[in-house]
């Protein structure tokens, strides 16, 4: 068995007096597809944001690909990571946001090529060639010259996925990527993610309320509640035979709300 690509060890995080993550630990194997589910405020989005270094942690350790994320080793001592270390670590991770976060002043092509050109020094021609391949994969090649404001939500999200992929991260984080979409646009984004999962060996972590998709997509499902992982297992175990009462209660509510499992 290989070593985990993500190792989260006893992470705690509070916003003011609200404890979002309470000694959370988890491990993810390379290439694994993980679905993080649970009620809002349970900490599932926060752990993604922490992995992307968008939030600081209050305590604990995280290892990405064998290296400390928030700490660096100097003469056998663990020191808080500086900007340079974080920059190095961020190369391994990409993220897609609920609200796309495209750059509104740049066309689709420039959205995708900006980061490779700036952070990796990729020449424009090579960056654009790669961008076209990615845009083609997400079905957006014909919109390369469009501005984000001209796109539908689903199209924006597919561009955002291509943009994150352009940096070839080992780990991709998807934070409720279909929650802000009109129902009829959800499927086009999910299709792209299915394709991605089938065609690449990227490690993917997905926070979602689409239980049906989580069931089909994930190798493993983690149920979050109150800053902890209450239950985890194969999709069938979690969705068909949840053991914990809180998992059962949550799934019941989700089904009652009309989501298909």
């Amino acid at each position, binding site marked *: 068995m290989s070593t985990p690509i993500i190792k989260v060890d006893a992470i705690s995080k509070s916003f003011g007096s609200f404890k979002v993550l309470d000694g959370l630990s988890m491990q993810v194997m390379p290439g694994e597809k993980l679905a993080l589910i649970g009620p809002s405020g349970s900490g599932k989005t926060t752990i993604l944001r922490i992995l*992307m*270094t*968008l939030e600081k942690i209050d305590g604990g350790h995280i290892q990405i690909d064998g290296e400390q994320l928030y700490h660096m080793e100097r003469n056998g001592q663990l020191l808080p990571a500086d*900007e340079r270390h974080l*920059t190095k670590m*961020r*190369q391994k*991770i*990409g*993220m897609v*946001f609920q*609200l796309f*976060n*495209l*750059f*509104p*002043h740049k*066309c689709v092509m420039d959205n995708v090529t*900006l*980061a490779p050109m*700036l*952070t990796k020094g990729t020449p424009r021609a090579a960056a654009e060639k790669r961008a076209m391949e990615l845009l083609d994969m997400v079905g957006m090649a014909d919109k390369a010259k469009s*501005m984000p*404001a*001209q796109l539908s939500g689903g199209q924006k999200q597919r561009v955002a996925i291509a*943009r*994150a992929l352009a*940096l070839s991260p080992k780990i991709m984080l998807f934070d409720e990527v279909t929650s802000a979409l009109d129902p009829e646009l959800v499927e086009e984004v999910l299709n792209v993610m299915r394709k991605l999962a089938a065609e690449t060996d990227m490690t993917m972590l997905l926070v979602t309320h689409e239980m049906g998709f989580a069931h089909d997509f994930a190798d493993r499902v983690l149920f979050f509640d109150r800053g902890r992982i209450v239950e985890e297992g194969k999709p069938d175990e979690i969705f068909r035979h949840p053991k914990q009462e809180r998992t059962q209660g949550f799934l019941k509510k989700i089904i009652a709300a009309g989501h298909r499992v």
Partner: protein
Amino acid sequence: MTQWSGYLGLILQGALVTIELTLMGSVLALIMAFLAGMGRVSRFFALRWLATVYIEFFRGTSIFVQLFFAYFVLPLIGLELTPLQAGVLALGLNVGAYAAEVVRGAIQSVGREQYEACIALNLGRWQGMRHVILPQALLIMLPTFGNNAIELLKATSVVSLISLADLTFQAQVVRSQTGNTLVPFTTILIIYFALALIISWGVRSLERRMARGLDGVRV
């Protein structure tokens, strides 16, 4: 009958000085605005402090006093300035202090999600600022920059007090030589107004050009 054409020439010369002052002052103001405005959002305390002191000082004291200070007091410590240099310096620093707050406000009004996208794409702070934040912030700054430029244009009239031959100065010359107040001052009123119109028209067309695409209408 007064020989108005000669006096009109005088006033037009003054207009050139006013335009020159406005342009040079605006350039200095713009430079100061970006330096101080970005200093205000710096992560270094010393830079934030320096920017704050500059802004508060130049907003909090009169442009009139600043000009006299530049022209009459600086020579006492060996810094001799021509009236034009003193005028540009005082106007640029004064208006730059106001515009710096515009820069800061615009930078801070760009959504948090844009900063987060920069981090997720691993852009450095300066890269994100230069390629993502500032281009969006610039559009927010423009209308207020237009106001600032018009303020600067109008404030140029104070330089007549250090005998720089701008519009206002020339109008006074004409008045004292002809005894007529109505004609010279109506003339410069119209010229000031026309210049202000040109500025607001220019800023607005710049704004339109930069906004293209952001609202989905670019073809």
